[in-house]
């Protein structure tokens, strides 16, 4: 499997995610945002960070960068795209994923571990979470408050396009375990074809049993199954 991690000025989780991909024998290339063609890839990763200093709106300027058209094309053809944190914000600004990410409800930058319930495992990113559907991953964001109108939220629920929701340590999805005010506690969503995943938590930070734990590894091992 081949992947490309797109690097924007201000990306800061690009190398972390590259290390994670390589750990699971995914052959990765770093691709600078000014390139216009994507190297042959099965998976494109938009990493976390603060692309273009979050100017205008988070992810907005990156969503107009030179490489973006080839990523949109890749995604529309059914190629895998994973957007983590700022990457999720970029995917929303490109229109590959619906909704919007607003400032956290309490206006604070959040950097902590949260419990997540894996809501739908029937996709390329989450299939290995079947045996472990309550996980703990870190979040680190200021604009992670997922917003959708009631029609969109209903569609995401009905079509099983919600990958992760914030929950408590027992897997109960409740208001008190919602860190940022997201509609229906949503932490990650898929597109209609389920080949594009955007998520606020950082799976690439939990891939080592000694350093952190392996709740993030499961996402990468899921990707390896075709």
């Amino acid at each position, binding site marked *: 499997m081949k992947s490309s991690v797109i690097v924007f000025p201000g990306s800061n989780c690009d190398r972390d995610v590259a290390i994670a991909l390589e750990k699971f024998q995914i052959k990765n290339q770093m691709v600078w945002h000014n390139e216009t063609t994507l190297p042959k890839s099965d998976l494109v990763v938009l990493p976390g960070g603060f692309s273009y200093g979050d100017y*205008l709106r988070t992810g*907005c300027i990156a969503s107009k960068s030179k490489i973006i058209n080839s990523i949109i094309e890749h995604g529309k053809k059914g190629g895998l795209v994973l957007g983590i944190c700022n990457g999720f914000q970029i995917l929303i600004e490109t229109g590959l994923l619906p909704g919007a990410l607003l*400032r956290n*409800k*309490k*206006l604070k930058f959040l950097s902590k571990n949260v419990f997540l319930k894996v809501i739908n495992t029937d996709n390329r990113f989450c299939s290995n979470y079947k045996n472990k559907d309550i996980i703990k991953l870190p979040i680190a964001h200021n604009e992670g408050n997922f*917003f959708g109108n009631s029609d969109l939220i209903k569609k995401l629920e009905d079509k099983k396009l919600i990958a992760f929701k914030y929950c408590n340590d027992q897997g109960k999805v409740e208001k008190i375990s919602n860190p940022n005010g997201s509609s229906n506690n949503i932490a990650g969503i898929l597109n209609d074809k389920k080949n594009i995943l955007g998520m606020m938590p950082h799976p690439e930070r939990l891939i080592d049993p000694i350093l952190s734990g392996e709740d993030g590894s499961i996402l990468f091992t899921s990707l390896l199954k075709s």
Partner: protein
Amino acid sequence: MKISVTVTLKKDVLDPQGKVVKQTLKNMGYANIEDVRQGKYFEIELKENDKANATKIIEEISKKLLTNTVIENYTINYK
């Protein structure tokens, strides 16, 4: 031609910053403040003398870049 664009959050979108500004104004003693919504303001200089053409361009860039139309509205102001 000088044109400005004001971008505001749509009515049903929560504006926590606006809320904090409103609360602060109340704390400062402005009891009659009913609501505050925070937005963005752009001043654009355009090489174009025809108002209709200018409007067309500004509409386009407002939709494509200046706003996220899922959550924001814009108004165009001519000087």
